[in-house]
């Protein structure tokens, strides 16, 4: 196992609820806390693509933002190339931050509508001195071409592009600062099937070309299965299972993973009988105690209600957090 490029060690991130009129009304009373990410450990080796799957609101994006350094963890540490990111000093911090870039879910809102494409892509390299003023145009052209965009369009504004092209602009912007790692936060979710295929192909190309490390966040299991080396399954702020992709899709261990896989609609399954895990996604404001999944779990035991299961290695390379594994 080569050394991890990035390692999240027991990171947590909590949010207070936004300051609405009522919470103002309630004043100083301790604001409800969301444990968006709850003691999560995850390490990613150079060149690896890790898929992160989970229901909406389970904390995938927050984890991605923690990895990208946009958010600071409330607890825990993030190690970048073996060093705690909290210890970095100014210049090193900057290069560490540039080392991980994020590609956002919504190609519309992640581009500043008032900047031209060339500025969007070229601003950061210029500001950080990666290129001088004279090399600007050539550099931007190269970045655009690499992302599959026609450089003659660089004087346009984001709104003049289609969704797929906008996502390419986002990719070009991220790659322009020559990162080692990308966090792709549902980067294809907003796109059409046919465009989605184009963007996934672009990722696959870039990955081989630049040997990029990737944290690939998605709730589309099909896509994750296709691109990832390793997959982590998240439920309400915690990672419940983590294993190489083939293992997860062939031998899911955690009941949640199993349910998830059972319900993925597939082209092959005609007139299938849908009958889902019952129960609603619990509110992250008031997560159930013990194992978060127990209210919906068909195998729940009394112990699940009180004790948080640990994420343990249950087979080589496969980790799962479920008390059932102790029983078996």
């Amino acid at each position, binding site marked *: 196992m080569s050394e991890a490029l990035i390692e999240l060690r027991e990171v947590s991130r909590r949010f207070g609820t936004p300051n*609405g*009129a009522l919470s103002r*009304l*309630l004043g100083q009373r301790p604001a*409800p806390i969301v444990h968006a990410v709850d003691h999560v450990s995850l390490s990613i080796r150079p060149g690896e693509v890790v898929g992160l799957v989970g229901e909406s609101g389970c904390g995938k994006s927050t984890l991605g933002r923690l990895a990208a350094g946009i958010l600071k963890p409330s607890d825990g540490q993030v190690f970048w190339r073996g060093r705690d990111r909290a210890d970095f000093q100014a210049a090193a911090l900057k290069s560490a931050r540039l080392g991980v870039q994020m590609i956002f879910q919504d190609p519309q809102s992640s581009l500043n509508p008032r900047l031209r494409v060339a500025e969007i892509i070229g601003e950061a390299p210029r500001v950080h001195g990666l290129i001088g003023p004279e090399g600007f145009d050539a550099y931007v052209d190269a970045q655009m071409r690499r992302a599959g965009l026609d450089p003659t369009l660089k004087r346009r504004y984001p709104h003049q592009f289609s969704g797929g092209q906008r996502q390419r602009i986002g990719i070009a912007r991220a790659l322009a600062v020559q990162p080692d790692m990308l966090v792709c936060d549902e980067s294809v979710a907003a796109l059409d099937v046919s465009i989605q295929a184009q963007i996934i192909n672009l990722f696959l190309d870039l990955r081989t070309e630049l040997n990029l490390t990737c944290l690939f966040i998605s709730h589309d299991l099909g896509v994750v299965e296709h691109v990832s080396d390793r997959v982590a399954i998240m439920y309400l702020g915690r990672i419940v299972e983590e294993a190489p992709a083939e293992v997860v899709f062939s031998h899911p261990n955690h009941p949640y993973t199993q349910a998830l896989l059972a319900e993925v609609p597939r082209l092959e399954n005609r007139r299938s009988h849908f009958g889902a895990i019952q129960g609603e996604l619990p509110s992250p404001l008031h997560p159930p105690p013990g194992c978060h999944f127990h209210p919906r779990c068909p195998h729940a035991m009394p112990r699940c209600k009180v004790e948080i299961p640990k994420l343990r290695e249950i087979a080589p390379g496969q980790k799962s957090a479920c008390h059932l594994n102790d029983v078996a």
Partner: protein
Amino acid sequence: MLLWFLRRLLQAMFVMLAMSLIVFIGLHAIGNPVDILISPEADQAERARIITQLGFDKPLWQQYAYFLQGALHGDLGRSFVFNEPALQLILQRMPATLELAVTAVLLSVLVGLPLGLFAGLYPNSFAGRAVMAGSILGFSLPGFWVGLMLIMVFAVSLGWLPSSGRGTTAALFGVQWSFLTRDGLAHLVLPALNLSLFNISLVLRLARAGVRETMPLDYIRFARAKGLSPTRVVFVHVLRNILIPVVTVVGLELGSTIAFSVVTESVFAWPGMGKLIIDSINVLDRPVIVAYLMIVVVMFVTINLVVDLLYTALDPRVRLGGRA
């Protein structure tokens, strides 16, 4: 709740403190009340006597300290002109202003909201555009001018309404109100209209913008897809939504309407606080000005509180604290 209330109170106190300080310094900059107040007939000895009596011989900071001392005991000083407690003077005049301002705000909602709905529902119709253009009149003509026009048309030429002043009043809860009598109402109409013109435009514009933003939303389409009548869609689904910004803004405007009814009150000889304050400013009657501003601050804070509560009542979403 209590904590929140205390915090609001603290904020209000802070603002009041800052306000009183600014007023002391500001009024000092404007001029010396002595020069204006003291009767010109008075000779130098008489002047000196009054100056000491009113404490103007002391340095400003000392006068301020005295004021603070009094304020802590609920005494905001006595008016130089009226020789009555400043607070009492203002409270005496408050019902008149409140009544005027509340009527004006009501009027602005009653007139502005329907017009705004109309203009929003038919943005391209001639009438819709005309309403919008007309609404500009509401804030482009100086209030004093419009006020006089109203008097000229409705009182002098047509003789329908009295030209100025407050009419017969009747007591309610121990306070004199004019909206309880016919004569009082007649006197109220013109000044309230004058004062509400700006707010009518404001509400109208807000309502229109709200309709324009709400109409294309999915839930309005869904309501229509359910087969609801247009009336229900507009007056239940759309209206409930646009009421939220309207209430917020109208609430805040009620505060400024009260605070700035000065011009209307002077044009219509309306015996409210606004008239008192402008007269007091003219003679630098400091205790009255300070007390007035204190009350305005308290009023602002109270109104903000009520608006917040109303907001919570109107928009169930804020209960969770998460405004999308």
